[in-house]
């Protein structure tokens, strides 16, 4: 799909109900593939440009978009590690405490503190008098509510190292009292990087460093990791090879689990991950470093060997988030002889996780089927850093080396002794197959001229291996981490990413195109819209999805319902435009609008035929003629005849109206074009209108728009106008109230007077109170126009014709002509 977030200034938000999971990436950013990277960490593998902005531009213009740059680190003078030695309530303030701290100066300092999250013995950052913290906060010795405070204990936010401001930053117990805080939190810059879903090779610091090295032509400092010794053994068995082609397990014995050293914690925290314990931290560290998610089991809690299998129907699994998940045979389970111990690649189990008392661990490094992981993580609503990487595909070439790297770190940090061999089962996915690049094809597709040597250099910089070449083409071997490169066009994309699209000059490539049916429809509908706007109607565009409230009500008795609506406001496809316009009326009346004239042109969805058709709807309510004006006509309300007038004058052709019955209308009419019913109109029944407009009358119309619109053959043709003068004569009459204008008109026309060219009603009044007419009667006045297209009429001829019509009207029961 083309579109990212709709508004660039605000972060996209997806999956609002999503379970956070043990993740360092906020859900929203992860959905868009935004990850945090530490420049200090990247520098371990590649030399970076001095200017961060330059690095950001380089990556962004190569398709690795840098969305944010954030300076981190606690480079403050007079901020040191201090230990809380005592804490007592503040005598004059409930929310404050008075702490005694040791800052290595030999003197105990008294500090007033508002936080609650520490205990005596904790090590915390102390800003001594003279320190200046972020936000230009100057620290002085002062009295707080009457108690002396010689500095301030700091949160992570005050030190600018995290956004979390809840309480003091509790430092590692190993932190040296009196040490400057900048030693614990050196300066760093954190990049927010959007990784497109095809680039799983960039989901680690090593991977991004490899990309930077390729783009900057700098050497990549390779990870020194030997492949471990492996052995096949009955301790690991794969029963679901499609879902898990390869699994490895390494046992490490006699470890001591504790907090991680500061350098390790700092690495994790710099990219927003919480430190848990040394073993879990190491697995996370290796994942962030080289992209392979690992899992450590408490080996003593496993019963028998590992079996990688599909879950049983309704098999229950207690995960380390403390929740029980019900699985089905589509889900992959890592199991021991007794039970499931992890949802493969998604989440470990509660009772086999590493804890403070764990002595022996089993370290898993595996390759899981991306589509299976994606489905499971989504079904269980359990997105995690691990599933994120597995579902995009991890590098088979790094899998065992990652296991070895973690094993070494566990040995160094937790003092464990690894057993000599890693037990493996299954087969690693094969490296992607190689294929060819034709240099002329590359030039043609890009519209540029790129020398073969330059194309080769670019591909080689990404680790591709030239297997053979002629003048016209070259064949390339693809590294294990670039499974996204599958065919020639993928190589052309790599080339243009580095060559630079700014070096390609935009071309003016035009082509004549005949108008389509969609063009004619668009033009006709725009004309309709513009005519309505010129008549005072404003255009509404309401949602094609209607809410539960609307469903089942008059205009949406039947509608195509969504299988998976997100909210009660959008549950079905609208079968009519009217409910949307009524909702718009309601909003505007509530906002104080005195006159509402709306139209909408849009699609409706008819459940019976499963059709999408285009319709026009109009709605009128309130005062006619706009706001009061110094020469305004007398105030009146919009009514049925305003609605009819609009429909008659916007180019729909001849429209006729016929009374009909409808529960939704107090007064209902069919709209006819030709003899075809094309829609309905009228005054809404109060049940429909009252919520929106109270007692005010609401008039609506809705009609189908034609499927075919005029081509050039439908252009209007000139007609000669009449050359001879016409003569007008009036007829005034009194008629019973029940006799309609239509009936009077029909009576006039029934005379079939050839000279009669037009009949206009120009006056109408009546009703109970009108004098000289009488109750139940009304007075009408018509102007009749006579003409002959071949000659000037004589007065006698006109009088004769007019008299015939008068005589005919006199014969209508109850009609009385006035002189």
């Amino acid at each position, binding site marked *: 799909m083309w579109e990212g977030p709709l508004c660039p200034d605000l972060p996209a938000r997806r999956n609002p109900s999503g379970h956070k999971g043990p993740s360092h990436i906020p859900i929203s950013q992860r959905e868009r593939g935004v990850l945090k990277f530490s420049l200090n960490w990247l520098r371990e593998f590649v030399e970076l440009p001095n200017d961060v902005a330059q690095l950001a531009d380089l990556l962004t213009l190569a398709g690795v978009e840098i969305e944010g740059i954030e300076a981190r680190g606690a480079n403050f003078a007079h901020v040191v590690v201090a230990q809380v030695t005592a804490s007592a309530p503040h005598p004059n303030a409930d929310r404050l405490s008075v702490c005694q701290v040791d800052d290595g100066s030999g003197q105990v300092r008294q500090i007033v503190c508002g936080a609650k999250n520490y205990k005596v013995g904790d090590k915390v950052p102390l800003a001594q008098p003279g320190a200046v913290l972020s936000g230009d906060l100057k620290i002085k010795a002062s009295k707080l509510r009457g108690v002396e405070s010689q500095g301030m204990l700091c949160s992570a936010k005050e030190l600018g190292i995290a956004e979390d401001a809840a309480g003091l930053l509790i430092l590692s117990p190993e932190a040296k009292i009196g040490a400057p805080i900048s030693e614990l939190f050196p300066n760093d810059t954190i990049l927010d990087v959007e990784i*497109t879903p095809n680039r799983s090779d960039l989901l680690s610091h090593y991977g991004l460093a490899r990309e930077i090295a390729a783009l900057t032509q700098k050497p990549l400092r390779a990870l020194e990791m030997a492949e471990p010794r492996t052995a096949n053994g009955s301790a690991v068995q794969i029963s679901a090879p499609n879902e898990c082609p390869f699994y490895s397990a390494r046992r490490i014995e006699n470890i001591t689990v504790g907090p991680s050293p500061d350098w390790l914690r700092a690495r994790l925290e710099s990219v927003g991950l919480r430190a848990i314990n040394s073993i879990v931290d190491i697995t996370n560290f290796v994942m962030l470093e080289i992209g392979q998610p690992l899992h450590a089991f408490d080996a003593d809690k496993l019963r028998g060997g590992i079996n990688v299998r599909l879950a049983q129907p309704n098999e229950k699994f207690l995960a380390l988030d403390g929740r029980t998940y019900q699985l089905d045979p589509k889900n992959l389970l890592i199991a021991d002889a007794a039970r499931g111990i992890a949802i493969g690649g998604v989440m470990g189990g509660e009772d086999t996780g590493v804890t403070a008392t764990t002595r022996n661990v089993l370290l898993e490094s595996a390759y899981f089927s991306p589509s299976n992981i994606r489905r499971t993580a989504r079904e269980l609503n359990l997105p995690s850093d691990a599933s994120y990487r597995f579902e995009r595909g991890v590098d088979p070439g790094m899998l065992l080396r990652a296991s070895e790297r973690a094993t070494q770190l566990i040995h160094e940090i937790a003092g464990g002794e690894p057993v000599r061999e890693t037990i493996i089962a299954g087969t690693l996915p094969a490296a992607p197959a190689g294929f060819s690049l034709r240099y002329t094809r590359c030039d043609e597709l890009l519209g540029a001229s790129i020398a073969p040597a330059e194309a080769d250099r670019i591909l080689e910089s990404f680790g591709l291996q030239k297997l053979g070449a002629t003048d016209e083409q070259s064949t390339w071997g693809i590294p294990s981490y670039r499974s996204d490169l599958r065919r020639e066009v993928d190589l052309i994309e790599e080339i243009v*990413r580095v060559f630079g699209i700014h070096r390609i000059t935009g071309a003016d490539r035009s082509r004549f195109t005949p108008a389509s049916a969609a063009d004619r429809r668009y033009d006709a509908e725009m004309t309709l819209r513009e005519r309505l706007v010129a008549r005072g109607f404003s255009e509404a565009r309401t949602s094609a999805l209607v809410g539960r409230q609307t469903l089942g009500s008059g205009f949406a008795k039947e509608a195509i319902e969504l299988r998976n609506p997100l909210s009660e406001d959008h549950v079905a496809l609208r079968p009519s435009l009217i409910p949307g316009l009524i909702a718009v009326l309601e909003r505007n009346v509530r906002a104080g609008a005195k006159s509402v004239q709306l139209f909408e042109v849009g699609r409706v969805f008819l459940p019976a035929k499963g059709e999408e058709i285009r319709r026009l709807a109009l709605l009128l309510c309130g005062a006619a003629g706009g706001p009061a004006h110094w020469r305004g006509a007398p105030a009146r309300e919009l009514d049925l005849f305003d609605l009819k007038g609009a429909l008659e004058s916007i180019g729909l052709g001849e429209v006729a109206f016929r009374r009909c019955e409808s529960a939704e209308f107090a007064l209902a009419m069919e709209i006819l074009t030709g003899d075809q019913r094309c829609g309905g109109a009228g005054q809404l029944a109060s049940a429909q209108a009252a919520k929106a407009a109270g007692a005010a009358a609401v008039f609506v119309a809705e009609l189908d728009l034609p499927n075919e619109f005029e081509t050039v053959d439908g252009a209007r043709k000139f007609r000669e106008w009449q050359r001879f003068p016409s003569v007008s004569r009036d007829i005034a009459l009194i008629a019973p109230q029940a006799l309609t204008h239509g009936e009077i008109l029909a009576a006039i026309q029934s005379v079939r007077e050839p000279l009669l060219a037009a009949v206009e009603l120009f006056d109408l009044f009546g009703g109970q109170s009108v004098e000289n007419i009488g109750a139940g009667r009304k007075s009408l006045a018509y102007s009749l126009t006579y003409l002959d297209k071949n000659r000037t009429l004589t007065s006698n001829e006109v009088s004769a014709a007019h008299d015939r019509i008068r005589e005919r009207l006199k014969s209508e029961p109850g009609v009385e002509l006035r002189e």
Partner: protein
Amino acid sequence: MTHPLQELRDAALAEIAAAGDVQALEAVRVLYLGRSGSISAWGEKMKTLSKEERPVVGKLLNEVRSAVTAALEESGEKLRATQEAGALAEIDISLPGTPHEIGALHPLTQMLDRAIGIFRRMGFALAAGPDVEDEWHCFDALNTAPDHPARNEQDTFYLPDGRLLRTHTSTVQIRAMESAPPPIRVIAPGAAFRRDEVDATHSAQFHQIEGLYVDERVSVADLKGALEFFLRELFGAETAVRFRPHYFPFTEPSFEIDVKSKALKSGEKWIEVCGCGMVHPAVFEEMNRARGDAAYDPEKWTGFAFGLGMDRLAMILFDIPDIRLFAQNDLRFLGQFA
């Protein structure tokens, strides 16, 4: 010796000059030239004159008559002008003009119309497709893997029969290629639906313009030229346009386009406005399978495609802060774009 007619003429001219208004002037006219006016009376008198006198006096009478008539007309014009000016001087031209109530086109319609107008100048015809689509048109035909994140009930609205509401107008690319062989040069404005919680920048329904151009030897340079032209027409000739490599399953190479213009509120910031790229050969291959022919031979035909978010462009162009305003249709909002 002065002829009596000459005396009458001089008297008439003097009275005309003295007449202060149109009514007084009319009285003078009646007095001299009226049916029984003193100059008119000479017409009768002529009959009593001798043959010798008649032509001389006749000539004189004509001269006098036309002199007086001319003086009456001239003076009358002046008097009427003065009178009219006097009357009009009292009109208060500061009174408001007679109001004409006109409505407003929805800003999204205006945005679409601007965009469509530009693309039509570039030779694109319109194309359309249904909002309710099947998975094949929305995903499979667009080289989107069966396990792609968008293809699930959390992101896409499905109907009970398994069809779905299109998540993008790219479906119309497929519809257009199904119905005609290349070359194709179309744009497709339309609605798309995503299962997003509604907020200031998200809406369950939004609007896009899709573009597709398939022809012989269409290149990235052509794509770049077309969209640079479009964006500068829309945002102004001074707009900076930047192409960034990106990823979409149905184009390769793919790009996102950013613009920057002092004329926009965003000023010196790059803002993303478009996704685009060269039609992925896998899309042509799937199209040939569906058509049962080789009309879209990827070796012969290449093409570019793009998608523009109309809600987003309208928000940028009209400084609209919240996408929900579009669907609310408040007259105070609509009226601003009249």
